[in-house]
C-alpha cells in the first residue's frame, strides 16, 4: 500500500532526505554544545580535575624555580591529557547510555560525519578547559610566556591530534563494560607520539629555542594530526558497526 497520507509540512521536501556531510557534522556539534552548556557535567569535571592537578604540581615544585621552569610543558600536557580523557569518556558515554549512538547511526548520513561532529565538540571542550587552565597556570607559576601565539599554536595542534585519536578510540571502548579503564589503556600508548612532540615543541618555545630546533616535533605533530584524522575518517564506520 502506498503512503497516501503524506504529511502536509513535508510535501515540498525531496522524496529522500539526505543532509550534507557538513550540515550533519554541525548538527552534532550544536547538539553537544547545547546539551553541555545546559548540564555542564563534562566541562565542570574536566575543569576541576585540571585545576587540582595544576595546584598539586604547584605545591610539589614550589621550592625549585629552575625545575619548575623546565617542567612547565610537561605539567601542562599531563593535565590536558588526563582532563581530555575524562571528557572523551563522558562525551561518548552520553551517546551510548541512552541508546543515542543508535539514533546517530540511524541517520542517513556518512558515518564519518558523526566522527567529525563528536571530534569537533570534544576539541571545543578541551580548548575551553585549556583557555581557563592556561591563565591559572600563568598566575600560579608566574609564567607569561605561555601566551605567545606560537605556543598557543602548538597547544592547538597537540589537542587536535589527541582528540582525533581519542574520539576514535572512545567510540571503540564505550561499547565495552570496562570503558572507563579501557580508554586510557588504549589511548595513551597510541597518543605517545603526539604528547612527546607537543611537550618537546612547547618546551622548546618556552626555552627560547630557534624555529629549526622545534621543526622536527612540529612536523611530527602535523603529520600525526593528518594521519589520525584520515584513519578515523576511513575506519569509523567499521568501529561503530556490529
Amino acid at each position: 500500500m502506498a503512503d497516501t497520507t503524506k504529511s502536509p509540512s513535508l510535501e515540498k521536501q525531496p522524496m529522500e532526505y539526505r543532509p550534507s556531510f557538513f550540515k550533519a557534522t554541525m548538527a552534532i556539534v550544536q547538539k553537544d554544545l547545547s546539551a553541555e552548556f545546559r548540564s555542564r557535567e563534562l566541562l565542570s569535571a574536566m575543569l576541576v580535575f585540571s585545576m587540582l592537578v595544576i595546584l598539586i604540581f604547584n605545591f610539589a615544585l614550589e621550592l625549585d624555580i629552575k625545575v619548575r621552569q623546565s617542567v612547565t610543558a610537561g605539567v601542562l600536557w599531563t593535565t590536558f591529557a588526563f582532563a581530555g580523557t575524562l571528557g572523551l569518556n563522558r562525551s561518548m558515554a552520553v551517546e551510548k547510555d541512552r541508546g543515542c549512538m543508535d539514533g546517530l547511526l540511524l541517520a542517513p548520513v556518512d558515518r564519518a560525519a558523526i566522527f567529525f561532529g563528536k571530534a569537533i565538540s570534544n576539541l571545543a571542550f578541551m580548548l575551553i578547559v585549556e583557555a581557563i587552565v592556561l591563565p591559572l597556570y600563568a598566575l600560579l607559576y608566574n609564567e607569561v610566556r605561555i601566551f605567545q601565539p606560537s605556543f598557543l599554536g602548538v597547544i592547538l595542534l597537540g589537542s587536535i591530534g589527541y582528540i582525533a585519536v581519542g574520539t576514535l578510540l572512545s567510540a571503540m571502548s564505550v561499547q565495552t563494560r570496562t570503558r572507563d579503564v579501557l580508554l586510557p589503556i588504549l589511548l595513551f600508548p597510541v597518543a605517545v607520539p603526539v604528547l612527546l612532540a607537543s611537550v618537546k615543541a612547547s618546551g622548546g618555545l618556552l626555552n627560547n629555542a630557534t624555529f629549526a630546533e622545534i621543526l622536527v616535533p612540529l612536523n611530527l605533530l602535523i603529520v600525526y594530526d593528518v594521519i589520525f584524522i584520515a584513519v578515523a575518517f576511513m575506519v569509523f564506520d567499521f568501529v561503530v558497526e556490529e
Partner: protein
Amino acid sequence: MIETKKLVKRFGLKTILRGVDFSVEPGEFVALLGPNGAGKTTFLRILASLSRPSLGSVKVAGYSLPNESAQVRAKLGVVSHMPLLYPDLTAEENLQFYARMYGITNFGPRITEVLGMVGLENRRRDLVRTFSRGMQQRLAIGRAVIHDPEVMLFDEPYTGLDQDASEMLDEVLKSVAAKGRTVVMTSHDLARAEDLATRFDILSRGIIAASATQKDVQKTNLLSFYKQALVD
C-alpha cells in the same frame, strides 16, 4: 517492502539467526513474537542497518543491505525500548536535532505536527529528563516519524510502561500504522500485538517457526498459536 533470504547472524562462534526467510508487504503490520534470546532484537538491528548480516540477503524499501544502508536509513524509523533522546535537551530541541540529521530543511511546522500527534505540544520546551517513561516513549515515536518514513521498526516499545502509558502508546502506534506505513514490531505483550498487528510471525531458535494472519488467529487465539509454534 522488507525481504530477507537465508539470513544468518553470528557473533563469534554463537549463531543467533540461522537462515531467516521473512518478507513484509507494503502497509502490513507484522508482530514478531518469540521468547527471550530468540534473536528478535538482532533481527531488527540488521533490518535497521545497525548490524551487518553474516550471510544471506536483506532488502528494505527496495534497497540492499549493507551496501545501500544510507538509502535504507532515509526510509526507516526505529523505536526501541530505549528512547534515543538527549535528556539535557528539550523535546523540541531533540526533534530539531533529528530533523537536521535527516536533512529536513523547513522543520518548524513538521515538529509542531509531530508533537501534536504524540500529545506533547504543551511540553515542547521542557527538558526530556523531566519526562515520565511514557512521555519519553511517545517522543521517541515522534523522533522516529519526523522524516515521515515508509517503514517503521518497533523493538519492544512497551517495555517499562504502565497501563495508562501503554494505552496512550497504543493510540500513537495505531495512528502511525494508519498512515499506511509498513510496521514490524517485536513484543512480549501478546494481547497488544493481537490488537495492533495484521500478521504474527514467531521467531524461535533463530528461525521463523510459524506465521499467521489476523484472520487465522481469530479462529483460535494468539496465545495458543504462540504456544503451539514454540512446541513444534
